């Protein structure tokens, strides 16, 4: 094995991991002990790895993400987690808690304003999600949302009244309930999929300037319109362009 070949193998070596026991690295590691040039290169590689690993791990996790995940948990349960895993998980949870407390003051706050709300809701709409209630009956949707203590006394914009609903999802934003009502336009490109979503929350759940006239903007690959009315904030999201959204207002 040449020095160059050993470097190419050791480039994938991660110090402080099980790689030390991986036979794939053993010959190259042995050579690094007797080849000064390779040893210097390998020492630098390990240093750079540790530094970059530390940088990657500094990525801050948004406040409230864990609570959001737990809040959105559905009825499905995993079935096999045993005692050993529970103990390991509890220990890991304790470590996570200590780490979270220690870096608490350094963590950037999630954008809790309207832009953060809008981005989160658009992402939710564009990704796959599980429908809490799948139905084309708006009355049943309202009934379900009332039962789940999520905003249900919303007023549909005139252009949306003739569009077929497909169901609803209950969400949380900053621990406040948000109703997501799904519709499908009948677009032949998406014959069976929802492609219009109306999010409704109480005004005090989202920091936004009151606006009775819908404000339209492009967000990611979607188009949104938002307005406030009777103590509620409405966010309409469609998978189309700005011209297309106006017919649903």
């Amino acid at each position: 094995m040449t020095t160059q070949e050993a470097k190419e193998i050791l480039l994938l070596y991660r110090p402080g991991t099980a790689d030390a026991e991986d036979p794939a690295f053993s010959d190259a590691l042995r050579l690094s002990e007797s080849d000064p040039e390779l040893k210097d290169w390998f020492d630098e590689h390990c240093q750079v790895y540790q530094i970059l690993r530390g940088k990657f791990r500094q990525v801050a996790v948004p406040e409230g993400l864990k609570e959001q995940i737990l809040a959105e948990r559905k009825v499905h349960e995993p079935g096999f987690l045993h005692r050993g895993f529970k103990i390991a998980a509890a220990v890991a949870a304790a470590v996570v808690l200590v780490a979270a407390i220690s870096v608490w003051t350094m963590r950037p706050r999630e954008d809790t304003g309207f832009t953060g709300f809008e981005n989160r809701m658009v992402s939710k709409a564009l990704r796959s999600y599980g429908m809490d209630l799948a139905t084309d009956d708006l009355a049943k949707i309202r009934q379900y949302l009332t039962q789940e203590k999520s905003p249900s006394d919303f007023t549909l914009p005139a252009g949306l009244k003739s569009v077929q609903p497909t169901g609803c999802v209950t969400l949380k934003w900053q621990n406040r309930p948000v109703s997501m009502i799904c519709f499908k336009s009948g677009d032949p490109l998406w014959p069976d999929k929802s492609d219009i979503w109306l999010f409704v929350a109480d005004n005090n759940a989202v920091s936004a300037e009151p606006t009775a006239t819908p404000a339209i903007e492009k967000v990611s690959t979607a188009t949104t319109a938002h307005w406030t009315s009777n103590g509620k904030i409405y966010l309409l999201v469609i998978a189309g362009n700005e011209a297309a959204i106006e017919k649903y207002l």
Partner: protein
Amino acid sequence: MASGLEFESLVACYYQPLYKFAFSLTRTEADACDLTQQTFYIWAAKGHQLRDESKVKTWLFTTLHRAFLESRRRQARFPHHELSEVPMELPALSPSVASRIDAAHVVKALEQMEGIYQAPVALFYLEDCSYKEIAEILDVPIGTVKSRMARGIAQLQNILAEGGVARQKTT
């Protein structure tokens, strides 16, 4: 409720590493949050099908990576990249330069890399998964993982070194 505690323990264990992996792929907080949530949602629906509890971590990372690829496919089809046969150039980043780079810049550098290398490199630095586990997560053969990882590491470090003092290249 025992099962509720199990789910909570699982979330407590893995939501942070999953978010960091998701953030390294998407580079936006909202998308990373959604991918992480979606992963646990899929777990809640399908996790019971997994019989080997030692595979939980791999299962979660695999699921997140697939969800990311699916979302990318929906947003835009991106071209298939073949690995070139050009000999690999070893990275040229020195420890002194690396230590001066801030974390945000490191993650930003991922964005400048070819997409095919981003997930392997993120897993290389973020997680202690074995190469076999990484191959399962990315759903590619282990040889391909190593090849992509080596080229990705070189690409990342060379991007980072462009703004600093690079050590002599050794190829």
